[in-house]
């Protein structure tokens, strides 16, 4: 479910970077104040454990497919939401930088999709509530599966939202959602089952580990931040569902209803004409809504573009090799 940099626009990437940075700062402050004995070392080693255990793919008998444990939920159960979120931030950063799984710009999106939902929504509001009501392995099993499915579905929904808002794919939103959600429902169930098996094993042998992590009273500031982001996520999701259902574009539909035309005439001031010419320069295909036509590109333009690209890249190779040799000689 890792979003790649190529799948997000700077605006969407920046927005989720800001949200994730805010949550990281709040979680860091909460972790600093919770005085959990040995918490720092435990976070580091457990993050490495999640990394390692996610590489173990358990085969699912009779299906030919496989699954692994759910990292965010397991960490939240062992460490509490804030420390689990920080561990997820570190795991996703290492995955992005070492393994090209994700990317720098998409890191905010990935942290939000795979850290925020399992740690701050699925764990406290689903897993914890179920295990409080149903004791023992039954509670762990039903809690882990429900929380894992819910966390993954919310994450997958936001992948669709981020990709669509970035205008990367031509895939209609409904089709995209129908591709992502059922698959992630199944993955969530498998991850939840595997996570529950591990927790049940530890519960039987080392129950103090499960109680050691989660502080009973989360900080007020953290609670407020999570509440704000949950409401924002709900609003965005609600708006997006409406946007997706109003074909073809909800904003244009509303403009037609208000003004009677699909596009608004921009007021002709100096600033507007300057901005508009800048926009034309930045986006040579600013409004790609022309249908049923075949464009004919100037052949000379294409040839020039190819020749120019080859010359630029050859120059870069030459300069790189030259500087590299000079550095080695030094």
């Amino acid at each position, binding site marked *: 479910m890792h979003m790649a940099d190529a799948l997000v626009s700077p605006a969407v990437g920046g927005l989720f970077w800001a949200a994730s940075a805010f949550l990281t700062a709040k979680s860091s402050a909460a972790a600093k104040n919770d005085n959990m004995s*040995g918490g720092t*070392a*435990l976070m580091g*080693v457990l993050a490495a454990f999640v*990394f390692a255990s996610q590489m173990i793919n358990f085969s699912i008998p009779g299906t030919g497919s496989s699954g692994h444990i759910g990292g965010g939920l397991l960490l939240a159960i062992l460490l509490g939401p804030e420390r689990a979120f920080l561990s997820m931030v570190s795991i996703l950063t290492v995955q992005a930088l070492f393994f090209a799984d994700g990317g720098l710009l998409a890191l905010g999106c990935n942290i939000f999709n795979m850290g925020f939902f399992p740690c701050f929504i699925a764990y406290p509001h689903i897993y914890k509530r179920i295990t409080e009501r149903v004791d023992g392995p039954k509670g762990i099993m039903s809690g882990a599966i429900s929380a894992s499915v819910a966390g993954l579905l919310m994450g997958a929904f936001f992948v669709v939202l981020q990709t669509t808002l970035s205008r990367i794919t031509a895939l209609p939103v409904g089709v995209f959602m129908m591709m992502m959600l059922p698959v992630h429902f199944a993955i969530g169930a498998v991850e939840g089952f595997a996570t529950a098996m591990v927790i049940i094993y530890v519960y039987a042998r080392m129950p103090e580990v499960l109680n050691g992590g989660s502080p009973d009273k989360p900080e007020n500031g953290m609670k407020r931040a999570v509440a704000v982001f949950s409401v924002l996520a709900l609003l965005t999701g609600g708006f997006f569902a409406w946007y997706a259902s109003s074909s073809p574009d909800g904003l244009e539909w509303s403009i037609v209803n208000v003004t009677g035309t699909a596009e608004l005439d921009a007021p002709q001031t100096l600033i507007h004409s300057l901005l508009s010419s800048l926009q034309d320069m930045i986006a040579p295909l600013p409004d790609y809504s022309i249908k049923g036509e*075949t464009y004919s590109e100037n052949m000379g333009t*294409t040839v020039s573009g190819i020749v120019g690209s080859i010359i630029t890249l050859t120059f870069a*190779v030459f300069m790189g090799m030259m500087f590299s040799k000079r550095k080695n000689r030094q």
Partner: protein
Amino acid sequence: MRLRDLYRTEIYDERRETALSPMLLLCLTSAYIITVVSFDRYQTLRIIPLAAYPIFVGLFSGVSGRDLFRKMTAVMPFVILIGIWNPFFDRIGTEHLGIIISRGWISFFSLMIKFLMITASTLIMVSAAGFDGLCRCAAAAGLPEVLVTQLFLLNRYIRLIVEEAHNTLRARVFRGGKITLSNAGNVCGPLLMRSVSRSEKIHNALLCRGFDGALWRGKRDMNRLSRQDIIFGIFWTAYFLVVRFFDISRAIGDLTVRCVI
């Protein structure tokens, strides 16, 4: 991600002496990524001159192209899965060099080129600056101490725990055991308990050495740039801006075609 991929970190093992500041590389790579993704999905030819940055820095820091490509192909499927639908849903044709090609294919190629360029630049940055170097510069820039310590510890213990997981799996398979979902508790449970015990030992060892909550504290002057860094930074920032706002490949191509013909 597969177990064997973790051992392909050889390109990051030692910090390459590029003599460039990690902070500069981080800022330039971020600016590069934003420039690349800011292009429209049909502007395939306009993006290509930006490949000069990863090519130059990769050659300059001596990163193996084969290792890079191997890493990039491991994560390519998700991007292909999202992009491959464009040719099916965006069928408007455009003519290039006398060939009619649908805009869906153009946007697909543009997505793949963007993915390759961005991924290469990120991996080259880590290889050139080193993970520790990047963590230190992030700490000096004000990243929370808890997170910096967490990143250092994770980086140190990944190999150890993966090695242990690998041994557990090997022992189980050699004895005829299967790695199925119903065995998840028996395979990962003991590993988890060993990891918890290990973390207690690490915590005690850290306390013995005077650990006070942070493994490394950032000093602001660490991110001071040298003259070479500033020239490098200005050159590439200017290049990104020029490529973003002017079609330089077309301009150079026009000039060359006119000179030749």
